């Protein structure tokens, strides 16, 4: 058990190391001279040279690589080429907004997905089940940003219930969270439905029913507990997916999180911000997955034994 956790931890550190290496390679791929871009086209050559020395761009590549890793490990992700702010600070400032949205999105997923999955499994092949299937297919087939724009048009403009994007009140959160959670909710409902159907065929469910337990007790104590277990892993994976999806949703709704910041950085050609966000988010994803793994081991005794 402890051995397993330690192995997973080492693996996670290795993955983060790999992620940092790929981020470095991507920065290195960038066409053009970063120092010249920062200094501006009319800056004298000495200034550009000074910036190059300051940033270590005059050093051989392996040296730059090791420096990059060492700095990243200390939380130094470079500085924005636009306003010279430390990238980590810029990301951390925007993080709370992104977390609000991601958590709200996850809540929507669970609040819609779990009941829908249960009903679909219990009333198998009924209209609810079919509706859940159709809902699921549309959920994974529609581009979230387009759905967001349509939602803005309908519920922000035609029927002005919600503000047309922005940040501040709980009302601002509703539409982006719904759109963010929509696809995931559909996915959850489907996975949970199939898990439930599988568990409902198990011997111990028949035993529980045969010994006279009421259907609701069987559902709560026996079926749901086992069927919900795999969705814990899924919730972790989803948080990772949400972090990616958040970029697009934030751009649509003008939600001031790390995604919108990265989106704006593209227009400003502010590569350190983009790469910093990529590295930060990927590291977060690795740690979320690790946490979910640990949680899973504590929740499911079977994994501990094997």
């Amino acid at each position: 058990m402890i051995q397993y956790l330690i192995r997973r931890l080492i693996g996670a550190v290795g993955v983060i190391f790999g992620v940092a290496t790929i981020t470095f390679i991507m920065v290195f791929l960038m066409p053009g001279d970063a120092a010249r871009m920062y200094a501006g086209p009319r800056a004298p050559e000495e200034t550009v040279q000074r910036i190059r020395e300051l940033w270590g761009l005059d050093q051989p590549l392996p040296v730059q690589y090791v420096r990059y890793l060492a700095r990243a490990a200390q939380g130094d992700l470079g500085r924005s080429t636009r306003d010279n702010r430390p990238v980590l600070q810029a990301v951390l400032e925007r993080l709370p907004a992104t977390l609000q949205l991601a958590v709200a999105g996850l809540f929507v997923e669970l609040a819609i997905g779990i009941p829908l999955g249960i009903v679909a499994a219990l009333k198998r092949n009924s209209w609810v089940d079919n509706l859940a299937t159709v809902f699921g297919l549309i959920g994974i087939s529609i581009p979230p940003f387009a759905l967001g724009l349509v939602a803005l048009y309908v519920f922000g403009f035609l029927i002005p219930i919600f503000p047309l994007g922005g940040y501040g009140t709980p009302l601002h959160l509703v539409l982006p969270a719904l759109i963010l959670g929509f696809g995931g909710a559909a996915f959850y409902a489907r996975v949970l439905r199939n898990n439930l159907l599988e568990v409902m065929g198990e011997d111990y469910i028949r035993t529980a029913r045969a010994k006279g337990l009421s259907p609701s007790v069987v559902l709560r104590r026996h079926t749901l507990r086992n069927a919900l277990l795999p969705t814990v892993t899924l919730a972790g994976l989803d948080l990772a997916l949400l972090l990616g999806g958040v970029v697009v949703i934030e751009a649509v709704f003008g939600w001031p999180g790390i995604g919108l910041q990265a989106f704006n950085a593209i227009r400003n050609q502010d590569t350190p911000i983009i790469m910093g966000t990529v590295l930060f988010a990927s590291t977060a994803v690795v740690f979320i997955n690790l946490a979910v793994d640990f949680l899973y081991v504590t929740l499911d005794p079977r994994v501990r034994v094997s």
Partner: protein
Amino acid sequence: MSRSTPASASVEVPVVQLETKANNRTFFSRIRRMPRAWVGLAFVLLVLLSALFAPMLTQLDPLAQFRDGLSDVGTPLPPNAQYILGTDHLGRDLWTRLLYGGQVSLAISIIANVTAAILGTLIGLLAGYYSGLIDSLLMRFTEVLLAFPAILLALGLGSVLRPSIPVVILILAVITWPTLARVVRSQVLSVRERQFIESARCCGGSDWYIIFQHILPHTITVTVVWMTLSIASSVLIEASLSYLGVGVPPPTPSWGNMISDGQTRYRLAPWMILIPTLAILLTTLGFNLLGDAVRDALDPRTSHRS
């Protein structure tokens, strides 16, 4: 401890049994009785054929800006007799752009997925056949790539490389192949232990001969199912990238940048968003329905479901 890390396939494909003539027969008789297979096939064919025969379905140039394509005050025209789906903010015909945009979006997704299929199959075959060092190196690499939230990785790549159609294809291929490599690898692991592999080895078959003559055929079905489902998600990601400004550069039409054009004008010209969104929905729904049906028809466990 053989539990795989949670960062595994987002597209679930079952490990498929060997395809014999008898199995083929049940496969076709099963899939023929699935309405969603027919609906999916119809959608896919509709979209593919209309993209393929675009020059016959419209006489106009997708890039032409028509003088009478804008209203007197310079706003886009809603659908009318002359421009059946209306015009965009530059007075271009939306029906024409939709058809040619479909060519671009579909070609990008298909080429990217074929590339990813070749790469993913090759790496999955190698990792699965040679366990040990090669396997762990390759699988660690896929793990690193899977740790990046897809859209963010694409955003990073798109920001360092100048946006162009080949770059979009490259980005899509990079973010899709790791999932397939994992799926193929698990398929290889089960095939590798079968007797006919052993007998091929006894007869003196070389590793390459065994991999390509005996193992590869057993991974083809999995790859095809995976590709059908993956093309759907590639269409979505291409649209997201073009929307975020790191995809297909204008003025070339693609469904994503058509929606992007409509974003700031959705109050004035909602059709600029709705029409490409519906096209995307039709495409992804088609591929998802088809892929889903093929997967279920191949999976003996779901045979009772119609």
